[in-house]
């Protein structure tokens, strides 16, 4: 099965063993491909993974730490073929990742995302409520992961309506008329997890709006909600109670592997699509960990051609719960993301007290 066949086959339909054989072969070929086209990657393969001797199983695929893309823009295509550089939104003070895309990689990302979303949305475009402010995409200077994510998702909707105004306040009248018009049939709601909670649900709480035909897709991470002690279960429960929405899907993804989206199943676990997979590794030894143990996530994807990002060690903690045994009919690994690897405070002479005069 080639990449295209993997894409076209129904997602989540491959038993893990079968899938691993296919992925290992393709990822091995991608490793070769990038080492021929990207000098930096070739050096890394030769020095960091000196023992590399081809891919026999998935865990043999050499990885790069995702943090490398913050300082280095590695690319496997000539400058002239780069048509867009994606940047992570990045929290303040942090350098964003920079990912060069050529047309083919971008095409793969678009098709991949649509294959994944079609699995839950069906083949037709749905009316779409964007829990976002229209100003986000009007300002084209900041084309970051958030904008890219939003634009990518907009492809799956029609009659787009921005639920938030320029000040991120809920446009309740607008939402009401959107629901009056489209609420009797399935419609799509998309936004970033924290925004969807804070600027949408909490504002909607007293409005008695029936959104029960809505399908909510959200992403962006749980960090801010965890700080408010809102769990994924609480998130679902409150949405169901206040708005009637029962179809809620979170997804995990990153700018370094756009299109490789890990979408929640109805059981609340995340599932890799046919062309991607995850491995959990011990954060210290970097050895692969067995099922049920918490470690850092390595993400593997067949999408990246313009940069050597087909196998990345993230700084996210995760756990694989089960393989090929989901209650929602999905094959492959069922996993959860448990948040960021906690930052360590380092000692030393040099970090100090700039605040004294700042």
């Amino acid at each position: 099965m080639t990449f295209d066949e993997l894409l076209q086959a129904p997602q989540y339909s491959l038993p893990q063993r079968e899938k691993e054989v296919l992925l290992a072969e393709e990822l091995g070929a991608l490793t070769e491909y990038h080492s021929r086209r990207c000098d930096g990657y070739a050096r890394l393969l030769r020095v960091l993974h000196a023992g590399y001797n081809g891919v026999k199983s998935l865990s043999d695929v050499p990885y790069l730490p995702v943090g490398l893309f913050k300082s280095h823009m590695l690319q496997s295509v000539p400058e002239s073929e780069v048509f867009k550089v994606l940047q992570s939104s990045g929290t303040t003070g942090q350098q964003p990742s920079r990912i060069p895309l050529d047309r083919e990689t971008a095409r793969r990302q678009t098709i991949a995302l649509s294959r994944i979303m079609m699995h839950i949305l069906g083949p037709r475009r749905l009316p779409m409520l964007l829990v976002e402010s229209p100003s986000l995409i009007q300002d084209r200077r900041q084309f970051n992961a958030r904008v890219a994510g939003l634009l990518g998702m907009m492809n799956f909707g029609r009659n787009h309506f921005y639920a938030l105004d320029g000040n991120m306040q809920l446009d309740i009248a607008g939402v009401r008329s959107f629901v009056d018009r489209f609420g009797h049939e399935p419609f799509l709601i998309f936004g970033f997890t924290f925004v969807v909670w804070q600027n949408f649900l909490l504002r909607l709480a007293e409005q008695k709006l029936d959104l029960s035909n809505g399908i909510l897709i959200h992403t962006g991470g749980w960090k801010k909600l965890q700080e408010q002690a809102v769990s994924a279960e609480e998130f679902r429960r409150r949405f169901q109670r206040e708005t009637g929405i029962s179809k809620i899907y979170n997804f995990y993804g990153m700018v370094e592997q756009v299109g490789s989206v890990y979408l929640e199943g109805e059981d609340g676990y995340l599932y890799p699509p046919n062309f991607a997979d995850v491995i959990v590794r011990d954060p210290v030894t970097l050895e692969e960990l067995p099922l049920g143990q918490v470690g850092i996530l390595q993400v593997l994807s067949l999408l990246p051609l313009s940069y050597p990002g087909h196998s990345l060690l993230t700084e996210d903690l995760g756990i694989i719960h089960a393989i090929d045994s989901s209650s929602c009919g999905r094959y492959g690994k069922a996993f959860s993301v448990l948040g960021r690897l906690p930052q360590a405070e380092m000692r030393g002479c040099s970090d100090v007290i700039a605040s004294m005069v700042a």
Partner: protein
Amino acid sequence: MEVELLVPQVRRASLEEVVALLSGQTESLPPFSDRSLDFCAGLSQAIFGDHEASRFPELLALAFWMRKAELITLRSQFQATAQTEAISVPCGLIFHIPPSNVDTIFVYSWLLAILTGNRNLIRMSARRAPQAEILLRLLRESLGRAEKVLQNSTIILSYGHDAEITRVLSMMCDVRVIWGGDHTVSLIRSVPLAVHAREVTFPDRSSLAVIRAEPYLTLNPKAREKLAEQFFNDAYWFDQMACSSPRLLVWCGTPADAQRAADIFWAALDNCINKKQFAAAPAIHMRKLVFSCESIVDLPVSNYRRSREVTVLTLDSLKSYPREHSGGGLFFSARVDHLSDLAPVLARKDQTLTYFGFDLNELREFALSLNGKAVDRMVPIGQALQFSRFWDGKDLLREFCRLVHIPSPSGNLEPGSYSPEA
């Protein structure tokens, strides 16, 4: 404007109050008086005797460094530098700005200043490790029992984002001592001092170790174990982020000897770390991995060796050796034929050279050949973190004193020369 007073008492205080405290204290002791010596020796004993403090090796090292015998040696060294035509007197008020995360530096800085008879103002960071809190408590207790002039010799405070406070305090001091990164030093340097005052800065530095392969290979396993442990102490105590912790290990010798010695050495270090059950936080491992990748892409790295706590990147050439670093147990490794081959690659930023297998004459010759270009310290492996009055090329005892010049009379004008009878 308020500050958090930490010594002599813990309480909130207004800036005006601190200024009044500082201006009210004019009495001081001469350099190396018995009274200040006894007081410091007493503090050393208090640290040794403190149940909490004894859990931290760096506090015990500090206490050892300021025990009575050591202070007496320091005094005789100080007296030996006396000149016939100039008398050493204290500078006055020293404003110390220690780094927020090497928790004991402020005591070293303070100690040399108080021994030379100065009054002290120390600005601590709001982020303080338990080690710093213990020291502050012991200082409060010791000062509480001391005589008035000593009690008045030290004010320690903490304050946040307030340039105005730094400005007011800076105008009052005679010497300002800044320990910190380049950024901090530059930033605080932009705050003016009184016209007569001077500044002592300790910016970012980088350090290396040099081992001669041949004598290393003749060591017995016990001695190799010992050297590994000393190297561990130098590098890992402050997550390799102390300025004097080695980040580069240079082997001197033939390629074959160096390779053999390196294999033995890194294995011995792994063993030492396993025995100590030392383990860095997962995020530090990730930072080291990212830094390794960056280095492999950018530099002539020919080999990568990663064990649980030790990452080694072998450099084919030291030409573009970077001074940026991840910390946490990552070492560049390189080889030269002779010590003198290092001279072209060393830079002003290089502070401490820890060594094994060289005699003092070789090191002196090397220092002379560098002629001020680089390196402020050469100490045996194991002593990288051992603080000394000589630091970053300065003699702190001298920095904290002024000289009053009284030349012996020369020429013809003797008393009586003016006598009308003459």
